[in-house]
């Protein structure tokens, strides 16, 4: 049976226009390239040490 309170809690508020700027700046999703770059930096860092 569906629990109304539980289900309602899962709903997230819609983005308003005033919040769009923040959403754009916070949209920092890492892709494979970012992960590889991080790994390379770590490897290079270890080598220099």
């Amino acid at each position, binding site marked *: 049976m569906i629990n109304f309170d539980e289900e309602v809690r899962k709903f997230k*508020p819609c983005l308003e226009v005033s919040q769009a700027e923040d959403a754009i700046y916070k949209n920092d999703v890492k892709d494979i390239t970012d992960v590889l770059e991080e790994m390379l930096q770590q490897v290079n860092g270890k080598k220099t040490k």
Partner: protein
Amino acid sequence: MECLNCGAPVLENGHCSQCGMNYKLLAKAYNTSNYYYNLGLDRASVRDLTGAIDALNLALKYNKQNINARNLLGLIYYEMGETVLGLTQWVISSNYLPENNMAERYIKEVQSDPLKLEEANQLAKQFNQALAHAKQGTKDLAFIQLKRILSNYPHFVKGYLLLALLYLDNGNPDKAKKALKRVLRIDKNNTLAVKYLSEMGVAPKDIIGMKESSHRIDVDSAYSDEDQYKSDLETFVEKGLENIDNPDLTVGSYQEINHSKFNLIYVAVGLVLGVLVFWLLVLPTKLNSANQKNRQQELAYSEEISKKNVTISDLEGQVEDLNKQIQAQEEEKKKEKNSQKDSKEAFQIIKNNIPNTTYETLCSEAATAISGNDYQKAIDLCNVALQIQEGEEAYYYLGKAYLGNQDEENAKSAFISLKDNYPESDHLDEIKSYLSE
């Protein structure tokens, strides 16, 4: 070969000469990203929007600069009524590729009509309000708000889902089903809609049937479908609860929507009521207050007038007193003048009646004083004698007394007076020598 990340040449060992990335790995990632984009595109084309969103998000995880995937993701959000989310994706996309990007066109299209943007903002705000009402337990308000939203935005999937949830909670599975069917028409594989339907006991067969009906919608017939859909929605929103068994809970909200048809009548009745209220309640009170003000002003003026009358009467009394005083003073002056005249006359009478013996006595005393060398006394006596009566003796002794007092000028004037007034005086021979000097 050029590096897919930075564009620098790739070395023979398969690594970029600039950033050091492994070309094969990157190529694999980019291919996977394109694969998921294609998957998302396929899903989107059959209105499996939720599936498309999942696939496109995966595509962006492999390559966040996959412009097509990002643009399509924005488009799907826009289609589901999440305009701001769509805009966000397009803005990021146009940031990665500023030229020859479809996202630019989408953004311009949305921004060219400020009303559209404002409507999208209002939609978000109203849905958030409805969600807050639902969370707080004021479900009637949430119903009203959601119906209003959905009558204006028939593609708003989130709104239908919340409405269906509210119907389910309200014990109206049929209305919930209708709402969920709308969701499946827009988003064929919406997981929440499918979940709610299966929880409601809808057979998987029927769910598939619902999906099939949504599959029939093609691009060419979308517009007419939308019209039909909109009219269906309006019927759904306006009449959805009319046939409900339990009218206590939700009939009220539908009646409110029906009432909106009579807006003009309401406005007219409101105006009439407003005028009546003004005429019966506001106007009399204003008149009363104006009358009271007038009365107060009258009282204040009458008080001032009475005060001024009192001061005028006081001043008149003072004027009368002053006139009386002036009259009295004039009478006194007259009396004084009369008394002065009387005293002068009396003095003249006394002066005339004073016996010559006094003059002679004074003259003889003056002569005695001169012989005793008391010249000053002699001068005083002679002056007194002259005031009583002019006589040659008095002038003579006065002159001699001045001589004795060595005041030759006064002595000379006294002798001249003697000579002028009494030219035949016996003393003239004696004073000749002084006169000649």
